[in-house]
Structure formats: C-alpha cells, structure tokens
C-alpha cells in the first residue's frame, strides 16, 4: 500500500558486485575471487515528481545503479524502497505491479527495439500484462495517444512501421511512447540522448520534462554529460568509481559544488552569461581500474588537493548542508 511519502525511491547502502570470470586455476586453486564493486554503498533519494541526474564517467557505476533499481541486475546488498515499501523480489504480484510503475529507457535506439516488431507491437507490448483482453482497436487508440505524446506526428503514419525505417530520434520516441503508455510513476533514463544528434536532444529532454509536469513522473536521468543534467534536473548526483562524490540541488552543484571532482567537471562547462574565463582544473593521472580501488578516499590519486590523510582513511558520505551531501575530508572551493 502506498504511504503518502515524499520520496518515490530511496536507495539505501546499495551494493552491486560483479564476479570476474577467471580461469580454472585462479578460481579454484588460488581461490582468488576478483570482485568488481560496481556500486559501493550508494545512498540516494528521489522525490515524487523530481528529476534527479546521476552523472559520472564510464565505469563509475551509474548504469549499474540504474539497472539494479529495476532489478535487472542482482543486488548484492542494501535495499531499495519504492513508494514507501521495500521492493520484494520474490513476491510475483508485487513485482508485476512494480514493473508497471517503474520503467526504463535505454541508450541505444538502434538496439533497443526488436527489429521484427512493428511500432504498434512494440508500443502495445506492455498492455499484455495490464490490459491483455483489450482488442486491437482499443490498443490502437492507446498507442496513437502515446506516439502523439512522444512527438511522432501524425501518429497513424508511424503505427505500422518497422524500426529500421525510423531515425534514431524517432526510435527513442517510440521507446518513450512505450513507457508512456503505462503511465509509470518512475522512469530511469540511461543515457537516452547520447547517441542522438544534438538537434534532437533538446526535444527528447523536453519530453521528459513534460512527463514530469503533466503526470508527476519522477526520473533518474543517467548521463555522462553534466551540461545536459543541469538543464533539466532538480537535483544532481556525481558518481566516481562506484560511490557518489557529491549530490545536491542542480543550481548548487553547478555554481557552488565543494568536491574537487565536481569542480573539475563543472570547470570545463561553458556557462551562458559567464564573462570571465574560469580556470580549468585538469585532473592528473587516469581513473584507476575498478578492480584496484585506491585505499582511503578513492579519488585521492587524482585529487589536486589531496593530503596524506586522504590516502589512509575513507571519508564518510555526509550532509554538510541541508540537501547537500558530500564524500570528502576537505571539501573546499578550489578556484
């Protein structure tokens, strides 16, 4: 039963580990089980009707986080609370309901649609579970509505096309329509526009915003592009090597982030209206392999202001201001 809570999603100490497949010798004789901690104790809340962006470079764990939320990747530890209730994996009825209310949009529009299905088949597939007795005419109506919303107009022309007949942007719209038809409460968008042309991106993102405004859908917007994130999000969380470095309201992160990593990221953004040239922070070295996470603060190897203490003790993820969380021993403005 849904309680009247503020948050649609609460992620508590989420851990997602992957075992590396090794050779027979390593695995059984040396017993050297290598584990990649893709998501290493992540805490994040997403409020109802909020768009939260999860930003990070490749390998930071953001995709894994998103998939774990929807139970598409197994969770190693921690729990997720959806609309006040903990997600019960084993309860079939619950999961059926959960799937209706939580959806996902994928990155690659060229792969995420089954090439043998028509647009109609794809968009109406979810209806098999909610409304399986609906006739084709009814399904058509719903599908047309969803396509219209997603910006494919005139929708009737698209209804019986095949994915290979559509452009990338149009396919993403189809994906969105497929989500929309369910009227979900929560959508995870995993790099939805990174494979689209720049001109199309804005349109797609606008769709997200209108879904949020019209239906109160919450979004977890996963991306590596901080500029995009800042455009549409209410809040932003920045991940690095499996942990959230800093999270807070979008404006705050854009202007007043305190984590060295966040500042490095924002320093390379071009800000509209900025006259002075901001100094760019260039991080030294490369991101370490997730198999060899540095001791202490995992960012310290690249941090421009790291101190000896950083390499020994891991910082805590704490709230330094209301709604502003940080993982750092010495948060400060660098530039």
């Amino acid at each position, binding site marked *: 039963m849904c309680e009247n809570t503020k948050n649609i999603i609460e992620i508590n100490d989420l851990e997602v580990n992957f075992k590396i497949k090794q050779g027979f010798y390593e695995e059984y004789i040396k017993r050297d089980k290598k584990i990649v901690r893709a998501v290493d104790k992540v805490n994040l809340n997403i409020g109802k009707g909020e768009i939260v962006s999860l930003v990070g470079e490749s390998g930071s764990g953001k995709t894994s986080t998103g998939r774990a939320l929807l139970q598409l990747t197994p969770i190693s530890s921690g729990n997720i609370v959806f609309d006040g209730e903990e997600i019960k994996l084993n309860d079939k009825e619950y999961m059926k309901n959960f*799937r209706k209310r939580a959806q*996902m949009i*994928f990155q690659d529009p060229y*792969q995420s649609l*089954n090439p*043998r299905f028509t647009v109609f088949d794809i968009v109406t*597939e979810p209806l098999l*579970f909610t409304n399986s007795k609906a006739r084709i005419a009814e399904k058509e109506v719903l599908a047309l509505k969803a396509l219209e919303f997603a910006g494919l107009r005139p929708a009737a022309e698209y209804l019986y096309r095949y994915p290979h007949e559509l452009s990338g942007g149009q396919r993403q719209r189809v994906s969105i329509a497929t989500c929309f038809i369910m009227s979900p409460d929560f959508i995870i968008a995993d790099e939805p526009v990174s494979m689209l042309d720049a001109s199309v991106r804005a349109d797609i993102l606008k769709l997200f915003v209108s879904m949020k405004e019209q239906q109160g859908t919450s979004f977890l917007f996963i991306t590596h592009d901080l500029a995009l994130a800042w455009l549409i999000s209410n809040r932003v969380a920045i991940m690095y090597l499996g942990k959230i470095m800093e999270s807070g309201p979008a404006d705050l992160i854009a202007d007043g982030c305190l984590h060295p990593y966040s500042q490095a990221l924002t320093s390379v953004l071009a800000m509209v209206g900025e006259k002075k040239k901001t100094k760019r922070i260039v991080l030294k070295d490369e991101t370490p392999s997730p198999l060899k996470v540095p001791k202490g603060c995992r960012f310290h190897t690249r941090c421009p202001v790291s101190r000896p203490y950083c390499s020994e003790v891991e910082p805590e993820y704490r709230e330094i201001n209301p709604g502003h969380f940080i993982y750092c021993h010495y948060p400060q403005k660098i530039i």
Partner: protein
Amino acid sequence: MSIRFILNRLFYTFIMFIFVVTLNFALFRLMPGDPLTMVSKEVASSPEGRATLEHLYGLDKPMFQQYIDYLKSMTTFDFGISFHYKQPVINILGDKIKNSLILGIAAVPLGIAIGIIGGIIASSRHGKKTDVIITTSSMIIYAIPTFWFAMILLMIFGVKLGWVPINSMVTPGANFLNNMEYIKDLLHHLIVPVISYSVAIFGSYLLIMRGAMIDVFTEDYVLTARAKGLKEKQVIMRHVVPNALLPISTTVIYSLAIIFTGAFSIEVLFSWPGMGKLMVESVNRRDYPIMQASNYLIAVAVILANFIMDVVYGYLDPRIRIG
C-alpha cells in the same frame, strides 16, 4: 513484399540453373572410365555388342546433339534409360526418392526440432550446469561416427533384444493383408534408422541455434522486454527465439530441400534403398543417365531452396525486404 524482389531472385536463379545444368553435362563426359567397357568386360563383348549398347544409350550421337537432347530431357523429365538397370531412369529415381523421403521426412525434422529446442534450452541457461551438459553432450554425440552409433543400436535392439528388424524398409517378401499392416511394418523398420539419423544431425542445429540465441540475448530489446515485466519465458519465446531463428532458417530450409537426396551412410548401413545409395553406386558403375539425373535434381532442389530461403528470409526479417 514486392513482385520486383521475387522477380529479381527468379532471374538470378535461372542463370545459376543454366550454369549448373551445363556443368553437370560436361562433368560426366569428362570423367575417366568409359561406362560401356566397364559393363562389357563382364560379358564377352563383341564389337557388335558394343555398338548395340552405344546406340541404345545414345552415345554414338555427336556431343552437341547429346547436349540438346539433354536439355530437352530436363524439361520433360525424360532422363533416358539407365545403363545398369536398363530401365527408364524416372522409374528408378521415383522409387528411390520415395524411399529416401520416407526416411528423411521422419528423421530430419525430428533432428532439427531436437536441435532447435535443445539450443533454446541450453542458451537460456547459458553458463550454468544445464547448458554445459547439453552443449558438451551434443558435441560429443555429433562427433561420434554415425556408423558406429547405429551399429550399436542395431546390436542391442535388433540382435540382442530382437525388438527391431535388422535391415531394409519392409520385411522382404512378406505379403501384407492390408495397408495398415504394411504401414506398421514400415514404421517398425523405421525406428532405428530414424533415431540414428536424427541423432547424427541434431548436433549442428543445436549449436547454431544456441549461438544465435546467445547473441540475441545480449540485445537491448531483450532487456527492455524484461524491464517491461515480461516473464523470462515470454521474453524468450516472443523476442529471442524469433530473432534467433533467422540465421538458422537458411540451414533448415536447405536441409529440408535436400532430404530427397538421402543420407548415404545411413542408407548403406541399413540397406535402405534410397537415393544416397543409388547415387554413389551409379558413380561406381559409371551409370551416366542416373548420375546426370540425380545431379540435375539436386541442383534444382538447391536452387529452389535458395530461392525459397531468400523469400522466407525476407518475410522473417523486415530489414532486408526491398521496396
């Protein structure tokens, strides 16, 4: 699907056909070993006897004339008289093809079915024990020589237990009171050959299907389907299998098309009077008419199969339809 697509395919099919048919004609003329000498060394062949035989089989006509006759016969299915059987080739072929078909239609779809279903099961449990067991055992079974495996079956079930007969299609010389008895006897004889045959072939289908399935499993739309809340079984049946069938459909159609050519090793083993055995024997005997006719039929079947494959593939995969 457009008419243009089909016509386009038909055109190339026709070209291939003419080429193959001419090659067929030339090849057998070029092979060393004169058939008449092979046949007539057995008998005190006089020059008269030889001339008779030559005339009978049309070998005394000029080469070009033989070619024209050959082309004509292709359309009328008049393949001439067999050197060995001294009977119209059609009669011989008709019989043998029927026999091969009986065996093939029972065994080949079965083998394909086992392979495909096995491939689906193995791939859905990819990496786990079930998959390893299925895949390894298929590969081992596939590697086992058919001959040996079938002999073992025959020894156990035919000789020791006496449940099945040892050879041939029906009990030789038996008079059947009615059709039911005949069919029962035929089925009785079919069991071990069909089992051997389908076991011999299912391995490759299984491995191909499994590979195709695993490829499809990694596609995003499968993930999407799961996210939509489809049960794993539905995901497999609606999304994965139809797409994985694409690469295997070509193999399947080809295999079905050449069923009538028989499987030589199975037929020899079980003394099944089919096309495979006939084709090999006719090569040994230099029985030109039969060799030509069977080659022609195979060519027709393969070309037809190709054509059907193109069309079916176009139906299955909307991406490759033209127009």
